[in-house]
């Protein structure tokens, strides 16, 4: 089970409609949210515009720079020093934001889409379908997340796509359970019962009434899952199941490689490590603030 799965337990049932404007108002006043948003904004900006921001290419090797041993530390030319192939560490960290951004978004999209389909089907159809699907989710939850992900990557072979799929798949049960729970709660709501009474077809009730209202905990969860995805990818890299192209800058891989040079060049480990912490922290802060903003129970405390 991942952190995200545990966080899920803390989430309450879906808030009722008309909450979004108030949520936005509360978000703007939460300093945590502002810090989180600015971390994430920098992260996304750097990820998209890395080629413009970075002083050097992330791929150019300068073996002459490490002729005297690995690896020269920070200097005027190389803000964070150079890595074990003489590449500019600062530029690699900037480019690394791009990989982490893609990994996080794709992995969470996989989890979200599959989770929505499974959870939606289970919650809306109920009965035997619900039981079967939820038992299947229980089975997936019973395998420790990281081992599950290792297993999937081992089966498919390491590639960036497979890593993203693996992280995504381990997160499916969280989203499925969450959505099912909130659909079950919504199903008995007055406006759904009313729609059903006036003969609106089941499918359009699900699409236009239930889903939009059941979705807010999913958004919170999605934000938190972005943070875990970045961390989990780093863990897979550490175990040797990272991106097969080691030249592509990716924080988990950079951190793992630098384990070999921990004694001589600790900055090579600390910098990507901090990058992971800061970006994951950004998403966690936002997720946290969203949760509070959307939590009906906390309303009126201010």
């Amino acid at each position: 089970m991942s952190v995200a799965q545990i966080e899920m337990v803390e989430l309450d049932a879906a808030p009722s409609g008309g909450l979004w404007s108030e949520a936005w108002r509360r978000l703007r006043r939460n300093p945590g949210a502002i810090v989180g948003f600015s971390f994430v904004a920098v992260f996304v900006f750097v990820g998209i515009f890395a080629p413009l921001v970075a002083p050097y290419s992330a791929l150019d090797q300068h073996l002459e720079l490490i002729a005297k041993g690995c690896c020269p530390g920070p200097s005027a030319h190389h803000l964070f020093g150079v890595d074990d192939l003489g590449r500019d560490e600062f530029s690699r960290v900037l480019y690394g934001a791009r990989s982490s951004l893609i990994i996080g978004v794709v992995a969470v999209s996989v989890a979200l889409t599959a989770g929505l389909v499974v959870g939606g089907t289970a919650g809306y159809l109920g009965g035997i379908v619900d039981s079967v699907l939820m038992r299947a989710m229980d089975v997936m939850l019973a395998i420790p997340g990281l081992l599950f992900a290792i297993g999937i990557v081992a089966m498919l072979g390491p590639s960036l796509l497979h890593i993203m799929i693996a992280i995504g798949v381990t997160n499916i049960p969280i989203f499925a359970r969450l959505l099912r729970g909130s659909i079950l709660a919504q199903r008995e709501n007055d406006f759904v019962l009313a729609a059903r009474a006036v003969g609106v077809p089941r499918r359009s009730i699900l699409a236009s009434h239930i889903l939009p209202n059941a979705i807010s905990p999913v958004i919170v969860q999605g934000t938190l899952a972005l943070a875990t995805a970045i961390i989990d990818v780093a863990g897979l890299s550490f175990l040797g199941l990272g991106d097969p192209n080691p030249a592509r800058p990716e924080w988990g891989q950079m951190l793992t490689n630098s384990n070999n040079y921990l004694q001589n060049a600790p900055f090579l480990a600390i910098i990507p490590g901090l990058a992971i912490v800061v970006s994951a922290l950004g998403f966690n802060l936002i997720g946290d603030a969203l949760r509070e903003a959307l939590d009906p129970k906390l309303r009126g405390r201010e």
Partner: protein
Amino acid sequence: MSKFVKVSLVLAIAALVTVAAGVAAIRSTAASDTLVFGAAADPVIIDGALVSDGESLRVIDQIFEGLVGLKPGTTVIVPKLATSYAASKNGLAWTFKLRKGVKFQDGTPFNGQAVCANFDRWYSFPGPLQDQAVTYYWNTVFGGFKHPATGNPGPDKSLYKGCKALGQYTARIILSRRSSSFLGALALTNFGIASPTALKKYQADAGTVDSDGVFHPTGTFGTQNPIGTGPYKLKSWKVGDKLEIDANPTYWGAKAKLKRIIFRPIADNAARLQALQTGEIQGYDLVAPQDIATIKNSGKLKALDRPAFNVGYVGINQAIPPMNNLLVRQALAYGLDRKSVVDSFYAGRGQVADQFLPPLVVGFAKKGVPQYTFNPEKSIALLKQAGLTPPVKIEFWYPTSVSRPYMPDPSRNFQAFSASLSKAGFQVVPRSAPWRPDYLGATQSGKAQVFLLGWTGDFGDPANFLNVHFGSKTDQFGFDNPKLFDLLTRADSETNIAKRTALYQQASIQVMKFLPVVPYVHSKPALAFQKNVQGYAPSPVSLESFATVSYSS
């Protein structure tokens, strides 16, 4: 505030502080008659015939001895449990005069019957133990079993034919054909002589075969009671934790200097170095090149060199076009900046390989070897000559989660090579997989077009390098070159040393002309020890005794 909360918070902080203070005071220092060695893993089993991995062999080396051994630090064969040996004229009967007064660690005498009992044991292994994964070296060296299971090689394939004890202290081994590598193979740790009494008493080969055909060992010979004639004997073994061996008080030769050696499994390379720095271990093997400087500068530690007895190479599968074209292979050879890689990444412990055989091995060609110095222009020209338009796309494989003596950091070699290849008219598609079994599976089944691999010699014989790789058609290299195969077969069966050397030199040059692989490095692996550890003699084939190791005061 709740009292409970206050109290527990205070307690928690107090506990942390006490612990920090307490541990600062106590630091364990090694006892002066014990050495702790950091192994990469536990042995599989302490029974030489049944293993092929270095961590098992390291321990087995201390407990068992063979008829012959190697002079410390070399690949020169010297008498061990046999004091002399001679082959008959036709090369089929080998007579060994045995050392007198040697006793196994269980008190039983070492004699001709004991030698033959061991050979008969290996030859008569039951079906499940005939597996290559279990008895690799018997399979490779002797090649057949007395009662083969379905599909396994039988007596007709076996080099070994029989063994006879002639009186107490003579044993004769009969072979089915001439062999130039038989004696060298006997120096392998795998063919150490075990106490026949113990083999029987502790049921070395006993086990049940379940409905799946899986062999479950039931005896305790290889786990708790390995009995040989060596300077050390097993005290205890707890898998994952430690394995202890104690000096053998009745050893026939010079007794071990240290009372106890403890082998401690630590999988991670960086963790082994750190444990050496903290003093939790006194030595470890396979030091990463980048750590050598740290070790040398520390003042407390030292590094020992093993002679280069390996080769790191870029493998090529000719079954995947355009690699079947010699011009493309030459282009690849010119496009690999081998010197930069060796100079930058091996911390002065590597030499650029111009041929497959390391310089130490008989058959190493001193002249006439074609040189492929890094030359991107030439590489591009060759590709064009082959009728291709650069950039030419190739799939280049490298392994993860592994550090081998010939490639301490494969990913780093790979990245530098791909950068140099992309300057030389190639477009590299990176492919990676964890070392075992994915990566080796991919290369051995012929899935990998171009790949990083290497080899460490088992014994000092060129056949162990060249014939193993290029002696017959394989999926891995995907070529069929009858001329080369024939040359290598002739070289191996030649027993005249001078002629054999000449043939192997010729073969080594042929390989570099044909380019089934591009060798790039022969490296000197290193061991690290605390500075006060003395008497450890690194060996090219890693046959190293702890009996001569001691501490300086």
